[in-house]
């Protein structure tokens, strides 16, 4: 179980290889890679900048991870989240889960992304040809995270 909040770029595939190595007790490994898009609602994006609050952001994500682990019975979880400036095409977030059966692995990854997208302590600024703007979660993100409390 690990949470990493870092400014360094990362290769999601390499993280998946490392995470999966020698995992003969797991039936399924599910990964999500969130990529910085080059357009958001039609506007060109040249850079995304994520502000984190070190010492506050990590424990908040660790709490989500502990909840996911307890709720879905996964064997292992890794969450890597970048902050600082991020270029289009680069990965922002990587979540990977391992479980004995694939349903738990899928649900834990899905749940963690819904939580991260709405509640993770990051402040996000998009810079493009039209200037800069601070952004908030989409309505769809709030609807996604509500699915888990209906259960």
């Amino acid at each position, binding site marked *: 179980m690990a949470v990493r909040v870092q400014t360094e770029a990362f290769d999601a595939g390499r993280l998946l290889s490392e995470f999966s190595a020698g995992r003969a007790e797991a039936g399924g490994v599910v990964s999500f890679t969130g990529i910085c898009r080059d357009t958001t609602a039609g506007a060109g994006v040249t850079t995304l900048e994520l502000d984190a*609050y070190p*010492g*506050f952001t990590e424990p908040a994500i660790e709490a989500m991870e502990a909840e996911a682990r307890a709720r879905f019975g996964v064997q292992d979880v890794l969450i890597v*989240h970048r902050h600082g400036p991020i270029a289009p095409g680069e990965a922002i977030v990587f979540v990977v889960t391992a479980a004995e059966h694939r349903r738990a692995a899928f649900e834990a990854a899905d749940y963690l992304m819904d939580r991260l*997208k709405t509640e993770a302590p*990051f*402040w996000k600024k998009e810079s493009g040809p039209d200037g800069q703007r*601070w952004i908030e979660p989409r309505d769809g*993100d709030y609807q996604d995270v509500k699915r888990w409390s209906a259960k």
Partner: protein
Amino acid sequence: MMKVVLLGRLRDIAGWRERTIDAPATLSALRDLLYREDAALGEALAGKGVQAAVNKTLMREDVALAANDEIAFLPPMSGG
């Protein structure tokens, strides 16, 4: 001296991200102090959804502050 940290759009409004200042007695006294220095920042701090954290813990109420405390003001989070 205490450390004050601004996150997200608050740092654009204030033009700074982190400062050390002489410790006021309470969180509300700190907000008053910041308002007197910079009314735009002071209003933003009082804005909807802006939370305060003392030593990395969110505080819902006014609290007493001590020297060496770290106070952060957090606008609504964007999520990851």
